[in-house]
């Protein structure tokens, strides 16, 4: 019995090892929460209004995952306040989106890295003709 004991112990450890891979890497980030979905649909609706301004170069994608008024001259004077409002609202949603994704995954400290990931992907997926900030911060046309 005493001689058998170590084998039992080992078997227990081996069984534990089999469980480890199941618990280890989460393949996907959680992005399906009520808060994230609400922000997403708000951004989706706003995009219809923002898209022409991306196209004209009035608004561009910044290197830190936000949007900014790049060239206000592309917008007729009476509409400028509205564009500023759109940009401010969009940025508010984007900050909230990055924070919510980090929080939904139990790592609020990931917010900055999530923002950086998004910054890169917004630019990568932007349409030809849109403006974005390159890593040095200079406005560049895609």
């Amino acid at each position, binding site marked *: 019995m005493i001689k058998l004991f*170590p084998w039992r112990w080992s078997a227990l450890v081996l069984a534990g090892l089999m469980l*480890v891979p199941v618990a280890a*890497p989460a393949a996907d980030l959680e992005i399906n929460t009520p808060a994230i979905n609400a922000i997403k649909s708000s951004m989706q609706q706003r995009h219809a209004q923002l898209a022409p301004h991306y196209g004209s170069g009035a608004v561009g994608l910044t290197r830190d995952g936000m949007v900014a008024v790049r060239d206000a001259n592309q917008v007729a004077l009476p509409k400028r306040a509205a564009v500023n409002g759109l940009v401010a609202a969009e940025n508010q949603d984007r900050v909230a989106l990055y924070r919510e994704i980090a929080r939904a995954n139990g790592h609020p400290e990931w917010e900055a890295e999530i923002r950086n990931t998004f910054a890169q992907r917004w630019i990568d997926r932007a*349409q030809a003709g849109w403006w974005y900030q390159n890593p040095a911060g200079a406005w560049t046309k895609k």
Partner: protein
Amino acid sequence: MRLKNLRMAVGGAALLSIAGCVTINIYFPAAAAEKAADRIIEEVWQGQPGEIRPKAAPEPEGAPAQPKQ
């Protein structure tokens, strides 16, 4: 003696595995984040007129011209 070594080896492997799990959870999952970003961006930008993918094939002749700059 051999049994003791085996026990130590198995125990060491178990400890390493547990340490591995902790490591995976602490470090930022860059690939998963990229995938999540792509899914969200696709949804937010899906309603845009004209092309959705920047690498889409050029419009066939006769199709309404896209205002491009």
